[in-house]
């Protein structure tokens, strides 16, 4: 029998997660409900964190965005202050499923889901976001770049709850782009995706890439493209990304097909950020 626990404070939620044998945090439920229906998930104790007010808070400022774990994905896409501070992340959140699912899916549940095909992590990797988590042992911070540890696996402990995600402000002169390649329908899971961000610091130009659906985990890489014309920067980016691709074949395409789409996604995303830069 399913038991839905509905704590009203973080302390209470952490206690429940520590005491119950095999409890699972319930965020928006959009992933959990499907897994339950498919008979993949049997957990009886669900800890619904929707009644904890602090998990819905959003703070935006010159440093970036801090979004509580229960903030809907759709708010990340539409909130004007978030769009200004981290435009690449906002745009990428807007690619998750459809507006209806985005209304219910949450920022915390999205990363905790740990799926290698998720869109938002590609941008969060590039922007070097941080995940804040809590347990009875106290709070801790995890870099998104160290969060995805294996196929459907994250660095989160079983009794930990994500409380917020912090995304550092995108530098105002940094150009970002997210490209998603889907083979079944426009708002389906991708066969391949790439987020790109071009930053300039002390005359050094760095191209950051986040890859989705192209390996058992979302992948991050950065390369120095200082002084390179677009064509060279793009071919170096494709050459650096290709060895990191190890796509899982499924109904959305074979491994080869996804790798080829992955290279197209990298080429498009990298070209666009480089071109905007050179035109600026």
């Amino acid at each position: 029998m399913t038991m839905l626990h509905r704590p009203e404070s973080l302390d209470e939620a952490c206690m429940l997660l520590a005491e119950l044998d095999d409890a699972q945090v319930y965020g928006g439920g959009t992933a959990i409900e499907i897994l339950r229906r498919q008979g993949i998930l049997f957990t009886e104790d669900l800890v619904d964190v929707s009644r904890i007010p602090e998990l819905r808070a959003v703070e935006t400022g010159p440093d970036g965005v801090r979004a509580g774990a229960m903030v809907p994905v759709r708010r990340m896409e539409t909130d004007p202050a978030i769009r200004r501070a981290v435009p690449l992340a906002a745009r990428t959140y807007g690619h998750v499923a459809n507006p209806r699912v985005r209304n219910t899916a949450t920022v915390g549940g999205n990363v905790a889901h740990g799926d290698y095909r998720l869109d938002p992590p590609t941008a969060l990797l590039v922007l070097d976001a941080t995940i804040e988590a809590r347990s009875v042992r106290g709070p801790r911070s995890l870099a998104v770049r160290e969060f995805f540890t294996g196929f459907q696996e994250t660095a989160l402990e079983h009794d930990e709850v994500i409380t917020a995600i912090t995304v550092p402000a995108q530098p105002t002169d940094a150009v970002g782009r997210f490209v998603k390649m889907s083979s079944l329908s426009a708002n389906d899971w991708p066969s391949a995706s790439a987020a790109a961000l071009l930053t300039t610091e002390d005359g050094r130009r760095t191209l950051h890439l986040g890859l989705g659906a192209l390996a058992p985990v979302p992948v991050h890489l950065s390369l120095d493209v200082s002084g390179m014309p677009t064509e060279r920067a793009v071919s170096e980016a494709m050459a650096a990304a290709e060895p990191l691709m190890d796509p899982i074949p499924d109904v959305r395409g074979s491994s080869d097909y996804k790798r080829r789409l992955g290279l197209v996604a990298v080429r498009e995303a990298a070209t666009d950020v480089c071109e905007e830069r050179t035109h600026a």
Partner: protein
Amino acid sequence: MSRISLVVDGNRYVAEITDSALLLDVLREQAGATGVREGCGVGACGACTVLVDGVSVSSCLALAERYDGARITTASGLPADDEVVESFVECGATQCGYCIPGFVMMAHELLTENPEPDKEDVVRHLDGNICRCGTYAEIRRAVLAAAEKRRAR
């Protein structure tokens, strides 16, 4: 088991539910809201769309208990002269009709957020809904017509 109360299309219902009961089943079986339909059951088709405080939700992925006290609008609760429904009829957007309540509710959300959508906005907001009869062109036209009708009233 627990007891929740829902306001569905303006009427209050009290329902006895298990912790795993889905909003979709409670609405259909306990509130008689049969305009809410099950298609895919996994958030991908939109047939089960309802508005909770004006926001679209796939009721097939929603645990009923979390909606205790919520105000829910389904297509059956719309007034007879609803601009969206009228436009769907006038544009011939309905074939078998199974998907239509979901499209109508998504259109309502869109028009509340953006009273003057263009074709692209309509597609972007509704493209998570599936019509097996394929009346997409008529549905697009109906939503744009509803926006105009609303502005004129």
